[in-house]
C-alpha cells in the first residue's frame, strides 16, 4: 500500500481508467477546529515488555484507529519509514514519506511532517504510539513532537511511558557507565511520566520493593504501575496530557505530594524539589531556567555542573490570577498559563528538578535571591 504521490502512479491511473479507485474520507470544505492527536512515547530496554504493551493496547482499543511507529526516526538517510495502523482488529502497513527537501531550515521535524502529511491524505488517527529503541534518549524523541502551539500541528505530545523489567531492571540501572556517559535506563526513568514495572510475577516481593524504591529515588514525580505481561488499565497509559495545561490542576496536587529522594546509586539521577512563597518576576524566572538548562551555570559543591533532564513546576507571577505551569525536557522548556486561579490561596511556587549533580540548597538559594519579586519569603 504505497502512498507515494508520483507521476508514475497518476499516469498508470490514466491508463487503467476502468479500475474502480478506493474511496477516501470526505474532505472538509473549511479547516475544521483541529482535533489534536496524542503521541505517546514508549521506551525501555529490549525485553522489558514494550512490544507486549503495544500489542495489548492495540487489541484492547480495537475500535480506535491507532498508528504505531517502531524505532524512532533514524538519521537523515531514509526516504520512507513504515508505520503500522490498527483498525477494527486488523493491522495494515502504511508508509511515511520523509521528504528530503530542506530539512535544514524547517522548524518541524521530518518525521513529524511525514505523519501530518499521511493524516492529511488518509484521515486522522485516534492515537499515535512510538516505540523507541532501547538506547535512545526519549527526551530527544519527545522534543520532535513537543512543538510550539503556534505551529498549529495536529499532533501533541501526550506523555512518555517507560517500561522496566522487574527482574533485570535493577541491574540495568546500576550499570556503571564511562565518565561523562549517562545510564540510559536511569535517563528513561528520569524523563518518564509513567513507569511500568513489568514481569512482577518473576520476582520476589523484596526484589520488587528494591526496584520500586530505586525508580522512586530517581524520579520523585513519576506514576508507577506494576504489571505482569504489560497488562495495564489503559486509562492510566493513554491521555496522560503530561505536557499540556490540562494537567495543571493535577500537577499542582502531585507536586504537593512529592518527597525529595535520596540517592540509591552513586553518581545517580535524583529528584530535587523546593517550595517558595511569593510572586516571581517572569524575566528573572526565564533567566534562571536558561542559566540552568542552557548555560549549565549552576555547579554543585564538587564543582560539577547540574544537568536537568526533566523539570516541572507551578509558579505565580505578580498580577496574574492564574497559576503558571512550567515544563521542561532537556533544554526545551515552556511556561503556560493554566485555567486554575490562585484565588485566596497562598501563592506557593513549587518546582521539581530531575537530573544529575543537583543540589537543592544551591538552587533554592539562587532562586530566592534572583527570582522572587516581592519580599514574601518562606
Amino acid at each position, binding site marked *: 500500500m504505497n502512498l507515494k504521490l508520483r507521476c508514475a502512479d497518476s499516469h498508470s491511473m490514466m491508463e487503467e481508467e476502468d479500475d474502480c479507485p*478506493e474511496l477516501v474520507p470526505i474532505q472538509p470544505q473549511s479547516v475544521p477546529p483541529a482535533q489534536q492527536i496524542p503521541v505517546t512515547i514508549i521506551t525501555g530496554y529490549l525485553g522489558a515488555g514494550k512490544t507486549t504493551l503495544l500489542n495489548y493496547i492495540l487489541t484492547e482499543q480495537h475500535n480506535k484507529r491507532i498508528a504505531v511507529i517502531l524505532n524512532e526516526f533514524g538519521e537523515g538517510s531514509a526516504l520512507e519509514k513504515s508505520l503500522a495502523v490498527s483498525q477494527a482488529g486488523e493491522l495494515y502497513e502504511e508508509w511515511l514519506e520523509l521528504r528530503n527537501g530542506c530539512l535544514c531550515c524547517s522548524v518541524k521535524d521530518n518525521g513529524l511532517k511525514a505523519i501530518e502529511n499521511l493524516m492529511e491524505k488518509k484521515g486522522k488517527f485516534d492515537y499515535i504510539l512510538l516505540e523507541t529503541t532501547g538506547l535512545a534518549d526519549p527526551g530527544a524523541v519527545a522534543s520532535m513532537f513537543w512543538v510550539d502551539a503556534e505551529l498549529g500541528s495536529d499532533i501533541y505530545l501526550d506523555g512518555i511511558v517507560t517500561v522496566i523489567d522487574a527482574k533485570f531492571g535493577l541491574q540495568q540501572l546500576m550499570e556503571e557507565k564511562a565518565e561523562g556517559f549517562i545510564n540510559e535506563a536511569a535517563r528513561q526513568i528520569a524523563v518518564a511520566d509513567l513507569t511500568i514495572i513489568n514481569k512482577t510475577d518473576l520476582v520476589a516481593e523484596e526484589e520488587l520493593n528494591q526496584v520500586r524504591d530505586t525508580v522512586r529515588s530517581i524520579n520523585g514525580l513519576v506514576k508507577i504501575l506494576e504489571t505482569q505481561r504489560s497488562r495495564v488499565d489503559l486509562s492510566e497509559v493513554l491521555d496522560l496530557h503530561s505536557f499540556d495545561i490540562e494537567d495543571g490542576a493535577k500537577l499542582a496536587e502531585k507536586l504537593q505530594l512529592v518527597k525529595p529522594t535520596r540517592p540509591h546509586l552513586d553518581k545517580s539521577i535524583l529528584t530535587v524539589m523546593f517550595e517558595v512563597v511569593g510572586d516571581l518576576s517572569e524575566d528573572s524566572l526565564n533567566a534562571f531556567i536558561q542559566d540552568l538548562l542552557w548555560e549549565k551555570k549552576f555547579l554543585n559543591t564538587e564543582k560539577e555542573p547540574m544537568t536537568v533532564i526533566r523539570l516541572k513546576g507551578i509558579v505565580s507571577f505578580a498580577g496574574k490570577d492564574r497559576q503558571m505551569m512550567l515544563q521542561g525536557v532537556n533544554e526545551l522548556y515552556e511556561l503556560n498559563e493554566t485555567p486554575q486561579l490562585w484565588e485566596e490561596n497562598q501563592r506557593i511556587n513549587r518546582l521539581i528538578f530531575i537530573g544529575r549533580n543537583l543540589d537543592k540548597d544551591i538552587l533554592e538559594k539562587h532562586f530566592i535571591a534572583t527570582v522572587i519579586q516581592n519580599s514574601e519569603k518562606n
Partner: protein
Amino acid sequence: MRFAPPLTPPLWNAAAGMATTEARRECETEGCSKDAKLQCPTCIKLGIQGSYFCSQECFKGSWASHKLLHKKAKEEKNQNEAKNCVEKDINTDPWPGYRYTGKLRPYYPLTPMRLVPSGIQRPDYADHPRGMSESEQFLKGTSQIKILSPEDIEGMRVVCKLAREVLDIAALMVKPGVTTEEIDHAVHLACTARNCYPSPLNYYNFPKSCCTSVNEVICHGIPDRRSLQEGDILNVDITVYHNGFHGDLNETFFVGEVDEGAKKLVQTTYECLMQAIDSVKPGVRYRELGNVIQKHAQANGFSVVRSYCGHGIHRLFHTAPNVPHYAKNKAVGVMKPGHVFTIEPMICEGGWQDETWPDGWTAVTRDGKRSAQFEHTLLVTETGCEILTRRLEENGRAHFLSQM
C-alpha cells in the same frame, strides 16, 4: 506484528475525531439514500464537486456510469491545457493531478545541472549522491552554538561580502521577460568567477545555484524556464561557499511596475528584518526575535510563515541556533559575541500555512496569496551586531527601495 493482506483496501472514516458538524450527505448511487461519509478520490483530483458515497461496495456498483464523469472532465481539461502545456517544448504540468494553490506553474524541463570548475573548494555535500552533509548530520539535534574565532570571523566577512556581490549582480537582471534560469546562470558564473561554490547546488540534491521565489512561493523556488512578468515580486536567495565558510542573504525585488499591495508587503517584510536586527545584542534570547517580527507583521495585517526559520551559519550551511520568526517559540539559546546566524522572515498577504510542490522543494502559501522575504547573515558583537551581508553602496539600501 502480523499484517492482514488487504483484499479490499479499508475505507478510512475520518469523521471520527473531527469535531465539526457537517450537513448530512446522501450517497450518489441511484436509488441509494444512505448517509455518505466517503468521497471518490479521482473526482477530488479532477475538481469534480460532491461525489459522495456510502460504501465501497455501493460505489463499485455505480462505477460504470460514474467513470463517465471522469472521462468528460479529463477531456475538457485536456482541451484547455493542451495549448499551455506543451508549447515550444515547455511543460507546465509535470505533475498531473496536483492542485496548485495559486497561478504560478513550474516551467520544465530544467537545464542540466551546472558544473563548478575543479579548482574551487567544495562543501562535503557537493559530491554526496543524495546531497547529504555529513558534517551537518553529525551535529543534528545539538543546540550548542559555536563562538567564532577571529580567524573564522574574518573568513565569514570575506564570504558574506562575496555573497552580497553575487546578489547585486542578480538584482540587475530582474526585469520582465528574463527567465529565472537565466538569473541562475548569471549567479552561477558570478560565484565561480569569485572562486566560490554556489552553496544550494546539490544541497540535498537541490538542482540549481540559487533559489528564485515568485509571488506565492515562500522560499526554495527552483529557477526554471518561466519568464518574469510585469507585476511579479521575485525573491532571489544567494548562498556562497568560499574558503570553508558559507554566506547567505536574500532580497525581494519588483518586476517592472507592481501594485500597492506588493509594495506594502515587501516594505513591511524588510522592516520586520531590520527591526529584528536592531534588537540583536549579547544577552538577548533567540526566541525573542519572533516576537519582534510577528508584532510588526501583524500590525500591518500580514502573517508570518512558521515552517521555515533562520539558522546558524559558518562552516556549515545550516546549524544551531534555530531562529523561528513567529512569536512565542521555544528556541534554545542566548546571543553571545561571536555567534553568527541568519534572520530571514517570510511574510504573507494571507494565511501563514504552507505546502510543498511535488518537486519536494518549492514552498507555496496554501491560499495562493503572495509572500515576501529578506535575509541577512549577522555577527553578534560586544555591543550589538554586524550585518556581514550589508550592501556597501547606496547607503546600504535594499534594491526595491529604488523602485518604490
